[in-house]
């Protein structure tokens, strides 16, 4: 069990190592000739107009929130799905109630126009 997830850890470390190694390798071969114009922010050839770290549409947060709700729901459904065949009809009805509560939430968000993207 433990060594199964050791494999994941090794993969993550080797993956990071691979990227760093490649970047280092390219550092040996590539030229480096920076100048202020080259290093300026790209804005189709214009002078950059103000910073980019500005307020942006709140809609992104709403979608992120909805994602969290439904993804957590999906996580809850995974153990249910594995045991489904041995749990019988009761599990099905119970999950139907769970899903319909969330679908009700989705319908509410839909009605409120939160799913609309301007």
């Amino acid at each position: 069990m433990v060594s199964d997830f050791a494999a994941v850890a090794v993969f993550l470390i080797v993956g990071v190592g691979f990227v760093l190694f490649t970047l280092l390798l390219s550092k040996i071969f590539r030229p480096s000739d920076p100048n202020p114009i080259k290093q300026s922010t790209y804005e189709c050839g214009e002078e950059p107009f103000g910073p980019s770290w500005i307020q942006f549409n709140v809609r992104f947060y709403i979608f992120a929130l909805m994602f969290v709700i439904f993804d957590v729901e999906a996580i809850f459904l995974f153990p249910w799905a594995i045991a489904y065949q041995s749990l019988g009809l009761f599990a099905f009805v119970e999950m139907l109630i769970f899903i319909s509560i969330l679908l009700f939430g989705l319908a509410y968000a839909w009605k409120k126009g939160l799913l609309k993207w301007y």
Partner: protein
Amino acid sequence: MLELGGIVEAVGEMISSVMGSLGFGSGMITLMQLLTAALAVISFAAVLTLFLVWMERKVSARFQMRVGPYRVGWQGTIQTVADAVKLLQKEDITPVNVDRAIYFWAPVVTFVAAVAVYVTMPFGEGLIVRDLNIGILYIIAITTFTVIGLLMAGWSSNNKYSLLGGFRSAAQVVSYEVPLAIAILGVVMLTETLSMLEIVHQQSKFYQWHVWRQPLGFIVFWIAGTAEVNRTPFDLPEADSELVAGFVTEYSGMKFAMFFLAEFVNMFTLSAVATTLYFGGWNGPLLPSWAWFMIKAMAGVFVLMWFRWTYPRLRVDQLMGFAWKFLLPLAFLNLILTGLGIHFF
């Protein structure tokens, strides 16, 4: 029969016997075997990307009645190798306004998230690094890390195109993540396991393929997956014509190459997961198991390329509406139908 599983096992044996005779403990031997496996898989991912880029260019060309790359090597096969060497020599321009640390780590996160999936991918009989008991859940979880990489890249670049591209991408990927996960639930209900290997074993015959019992689930999975990997018609984050490549605008040289690599690896991952979950994985007659896996996965990749030259890009409002108002209810419908089906048939 060219079964690679035996070779892999032999290499593992060799490592353990050589290191055993040198007096290393079993922990070190396992670590060494894992390191070898990780290096092999990452090399595979790199070579695969070289092939997929060539394939993409060739397929695109054929769809447009061109010939595509054909000068470097046979039919242009080593064109992408030449491109990779070129990218290695390209100057790495870091704009002065970027958030340096995040800017640097964004390609690393994206790439690592893309290759870490292959820990539990059954490439063929005996060709799986570790059969995690939470297999498919792990794959869903680790692919979500891509979002973090994209957000990091988009935000840290301090460029309006990158920011827009990064946020659009994050919104898109998380929205399509939900129908994707719920579509996969249908398969999990049938198999009663999350282990990739076990899912493959349960589909050993052609008529046992899950796609026959989960046609709706597969369609939802495939559409949501196409959006997950940012392929046309869902390629808004990089919409070349409006966002100048979105979150990668400020990246150049090898850092750009890492995003590129991750993108193609993700495309193959989608196809490979679809193969495993719905098309019987490496099961098939005559040919060795890894060949079947590659044939099926490559067919999936070809379909993705086919999509690219068939469908126009969606508008961003249509994109989100489609995920929440159409795919998600459809995914739930599939879940309920599967539940009913298991009970009454």
